[in-house]
């Protein structure tokens, strides 16, 4: 049975590294893996998404609307934007973090004030403060690996040797803090 994980956020938040680590781990574990990203102008502060699919044999690299087992959002409003990708019994993990887009910055629109309630009323939702936890560990940038830890736990992928994956793919100086970050994320869901 193919599983689908949708990672969303804002350009520059580190969704791409998180999905790279995730897909490498899944491949090492013997799954067939497909992953799809949209680049381009999104790196100028636009909305970004990474589709990750794994199973015995995966066809489409893209998750169908209504096909995601889990939606992991690095930013709160982005979770709302992609909610229709979720299966009716799908799960949402969302970073308690807001990035204001241009219409909001310029005062033309308001950031959705009740994002938490909407998400909770629509799906099983875990809101976690990945930035705060990352700061506690001493580096805001490990936020993405905290969220990766949350995905691993939520999808029941703890058996994979993630420490080895971190060692293979990260700068050696950053491995230890990221191992801690991964564990932190796993404990948050």
């Amino acid at each position: 049975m193919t599983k689908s994980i949708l990672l969303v956020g804002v350009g520059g938040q580190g969704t791409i590294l998180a999905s790279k680590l995730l897909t490498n781990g899944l491949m090492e574990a013997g799954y067939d893996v497909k992953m799809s990203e949209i680049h381009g102008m999104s790196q100028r502060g636009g909305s970004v998404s990474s589709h990750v699919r794994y199973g015995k044999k995966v066809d489409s690299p893209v998750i169908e609307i209504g096909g995601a087992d889990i939606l992991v959002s690095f930013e709160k409003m982005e979770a709302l934007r992609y909610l229709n990708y979720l299966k009716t019994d799908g799960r949402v993990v969302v970073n308690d973090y807001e990035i204001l887009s241009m219409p909001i910055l310029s005062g033309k629109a308001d950031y959705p004030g009740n994002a938490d309630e909407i998400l909770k009323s629509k799906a099983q939702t875990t809101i976690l403060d990945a930035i705060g936890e990352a700061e506690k560990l001493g580096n805001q940038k490990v936020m993405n690996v905290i969220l990766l830890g949350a995905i691993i736990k939520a999808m029941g992928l703890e058996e994979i040797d993630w420490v080895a994956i971190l060692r293979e793919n990260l700068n050696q100086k950053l491995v230890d803090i990221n191992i801690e970050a991964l564990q932190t994320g796993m404990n948050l869901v």
Partner: protein
Amino acid sequence: MKKLMTGNEAIARGAYEAGVLYASAYPGTPSTEILENIALYKECIVAEWAPNEKVAMEAVIGASIAGARSIASMKHVGLNVAADPVFTFSYTGVGGGSVIVTADEPGQHSSQNEQDSRNYAKAAKIPMLEPTDAQESKDMTKIAFMVSEEYDTPVFIRMTTRVCHSKGIVSCDGREDRAIIPYIKNAKKYVTVPTHARKLREKVATREKKLLDFSNATDLNFIEWGNKEIGVISSGVCYSYAKEIFGDKVSYLKLGFTYPLPTEKISEFCSNVEKIYVIEENDPYIEEKVKELGFRCYGKNTFPEYGEMLPEVIRQSVFGELLPTVLYEEKEVVPRPPTLCAGCPHRGVFYELGKRKNIFISGDIGCYTLGFAEPYNAMDQNVCMGSAMGVGHGAQKVFDMVNDNKMKVVSVLGDSTFFHTGLNGLIDVFYNKSNTVNIILDNRITGMTGHQENPSSGYTLQGEKTFEIDIENVVKALGFKQVVVIDPNNLESVKKALDWALSLDEPSVIITRWPCVLKKLSPEDKNEFGELFSAKCFVDSEKCIGCKKCLKTGCPAISFDKKNKKSVIDSVPCVGCEVCKQVCPVHAIGKVE
């Protein structure tokens, strides 16, 4: 060895394994990473950014004639630029095998149009392969080189955004070392005067027949029999979407070699299934062939004419419904459009241009196209790479036909776009004497596609120091007398330059020179611009009168606190470019050193 790769990385790997010696490209989403990844094999492949796709193509033709396997890569609209040499390269054929990768953009994620490169294959009579995923991207690149040499023809590979940017597991092999084929002069093959070209035309006609046989025989076009009530014909990533929706029950004809199309295989398939769906992105290219062969099928009458044929699109078209999902009010979600970065050197120019009346701003392709949007609204048109000055010239000629014309054209493009094809437009301005203002936004790099070196950056793709073409000297050498170079972060100098240029009775050029805020600075940059900005700006809320003027700069670091009616600067994205500081009427914006 197995690796997770994108389609673009896999094309690069295929080129490496096929023994390619020379590669050239001009960056363009979604094709850019093909050459960037080929460049990683620097011990054995010469990889270069060309000024545009036509030159990349020409250099690849030269490398092929000189006996090496060579590859050019470009986005779909880049193939329009390269089309002229491509059509005749089809006639001459190759020395060393030669492959042209073109990346289409169904759904227009980062492009100004949707076009189907398969029409180019048909028009130029060049065989075409269409991979579905990363593994096929690698395998087909190697096959393309074999076809190229065996049939004496360049070969197209048609990618699409999802194939370029989707990862899959790829088995990698070693490199096949291929010696350079010794060059032997052969004017009848390579000098395309009409006497030779007519013979070459005959050769192409014969080649087409042989390629049709190949297309019918090759495993690149294969049938998977399931039940015969439904038969799906598909190519590229659409095949993987179709499998997702129809599963293994129905029958499939999967087309990997799509020019020439395998007429016999299509007929065999269509004769054996009851209901035929043709699922393809962009034009009804396969569908037309199916109908020409006398079969009824469900194609564009069932699926959308344009956009991506994503799984949900197929499901909706065939079954009339989507998967059940979580519903929510879409209007609660605020759009997140791309914006000029905090510290972007284009900001000052568009801030000043947006305030002017009676100007027609002729734009171009790059990050600066965002000048069209709120809060600048500072662009009237953009059509294709390098077009700003040519379009601006024509517009000015017509504005001038109107009595008491007040409209003046300001054409705007970037440094890399200027060298791409913008230079020709500027020549037209000068030669045919239109009184336009021409702005070259020199941010020292090719920005939007992710920072590629270009002819004025002073470095090659491999990071080697090279000759730097000085834009000011080029413009003056064309004959322009009215030329200034300014710092775009200094609003006073932008304003003065515009006042000056708009008052002239002859064409002028304004060059803004400041590096992209995301650029990794070279030693030369550091020497010229210092360490750039080191301090951050902040709003003194005691002084701020809440006039929102700073918001008009469109900087993503500035927001408005509705409760306190004051502007706020987020110190994380702010780089301290001071554009907002110059705009504030009450000097409420300061700088922390």
